[in-house]
């Protein structure tokens, strides 16, 4: 930690000290025994952003924080968890001669299956373990603890669909991201595979007699990176790992956005065909490409763009020639 003072006080005037280091102002102010307006303790993240009155963490998270300011007894406050089985606070660096102390909030990893809420209260350090007196000037910090997110097993159809929906859609933070558009887009992707299975796998490079969705998605050159599912291409695997990491890092700015994104993919993967609703295209959806990309083939006709993807149906003549009528 950077030194805030010179190691020995020299005989300089207060004004000279102020000009040397602006942080000295707070210390001189504080050390003046006649000063009743002591700075209250304030909680910050390590990047100096205020912690606020409420934070969200995920099971297994560890959050380093700073507390600036002392209690009314001129000693550092002690933060105590109301639920120490769920969440603890430990000291990293505490020195009553320094205005700032470093602490760490840690959440238990196992056994958190539902969202829970607890508080950290500030106590005056009276030198005893009992810590009976609260610091009335420091508001309790509310902590919401969320369970760890895990994807459905990759051996299941829901697991495969979830992974496909996650990597094929645009994600939070990318230009044009809208959760409502992506939700619709995910459903439309489900329709594409349902319709392809009904029309016949042989028309989409999957060979004949494939009536299993996982085998269908694994068809050569159909969905990038899924040819050897459940082994995904390295880049897809790394993308999924990144999404899950952010979703399980309560300290990340996009934590909620990615938790919602993953929840959306899981929910859409779980919908039954009847729950999906009606195919938006009267001639049914059969393909998608990144918006603006060239057509997936001469037998495909652009239907509409949704969530960063262009969705296609088939030409009437192709459907007729398929003998299935697409119905």
């Amino acid at each position: 930690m950077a030194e805030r003072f010179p190691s020995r006080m020299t005989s300089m005037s207060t004004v000279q000290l102020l000009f040397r280091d602006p942080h000295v102002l707070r210390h001189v102010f504080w050390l003046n025994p006649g000063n009743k307006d002591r700075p209250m303790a304030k909680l910050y993240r390590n990047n100096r952003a205020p912690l606020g009155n409420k934070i969200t963490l995920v099971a297994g998270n560890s959050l380093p924080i700073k507390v600036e300011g002392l209690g009314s007894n001129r000693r550092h406050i002690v933060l105590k968890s109301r639920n120490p089985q769920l969440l603890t606070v430990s000291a990293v660096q505490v020195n009553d001669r320094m205005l700032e102390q470093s602490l760490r909030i840690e959440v238990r990893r196992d056994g958190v299956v539902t969202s829970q809420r607890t508080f950290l209260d500030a106590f005056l350090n009276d030198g005893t373990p009992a810590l009976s007196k609260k610091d009335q000037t420091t508001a309790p910090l509310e902590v919401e603890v969320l369970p760890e997110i895990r994807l459905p097993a990759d051996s299941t159809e829901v697991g495969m669909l979830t992974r496909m929906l996650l990597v094929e859609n645009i994600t939070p933070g990318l230009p044009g991201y809208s959760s409502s558009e992506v939700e619709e887009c995910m459903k439309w992707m489900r329709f594409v595979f349902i319709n392809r299975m009904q029309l016949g796998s042989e028309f989409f490079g999957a060979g004949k007699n494939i009536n299993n969705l996982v085998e269908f998605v694994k068809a050569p050159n159909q969905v990038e990176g899924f040819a050897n599912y459940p082994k995904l291409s390295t880049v897809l695997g790394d993308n999924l790992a990144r999404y899950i990491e952010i979703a399980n890092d309560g300290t990340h700015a996009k934590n909620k956005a990615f938790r919602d994104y993953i929840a959306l993919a899981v929910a859409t993967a779980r919908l039954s065909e009847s729950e999906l609703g009606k195919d938006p295209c009267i001639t049914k959806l059969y393909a998608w490409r990144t918006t603006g990309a060239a057509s997936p083939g001469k037998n495909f006709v652009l239907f509409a763009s949704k969530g960063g993807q262009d969705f296609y149906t088939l030409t009437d003549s192709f459907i007729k020639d398929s003998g299935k009528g697409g119905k």
Partner: protein
Amino acid sequence: MAFCLSFKKYSLLLSFLIFSLAFNTVFGSDIPSSPFSDENQPTSRFDTSANSYFSFPEPSIQARIARSGKNDQINHFCIVGYQWGNGNMQVWVHWQEQKEIILWQGGDDEETQIASMALARKELVLGRDTVKSEEEINGSSYLITESAWHDIVNDCAKNGRQFTIDPFVSNN
């Protein structure tokens, strides 16, 4: 008199042609059409350096090189951006040494931009992810024709931003 009218007519025609060429070059109707949907062509190129979603090209490129383990060589990149009237954008990045084009989706902060380049889901390698004809795309969500691949690369060389990255030590 007839000659004067003809000369005037030709002057007007020539002026119109010069204006059209300038207009099209600036606003991009010389954009190659094959990489894009016939029904939905981009309206123009855009300057990625002036767009906040693509404001960190250097660290993004470095991250991609480092992830690929190719940081011990000189690498050449090119970035070109296309946009549509409805606000849609596509930014293609050509990595010369790897013979690949990457669809860079950008991001609203540096971390997202770096991740979307390093972990780009659309990385189209010539020969591996390209086919000779449109028929061979056959419903794929990602394959493109070889000619479309080359069209993007050539357009980038002519109209994109060029980057040369010297060898560097990676933190990975």
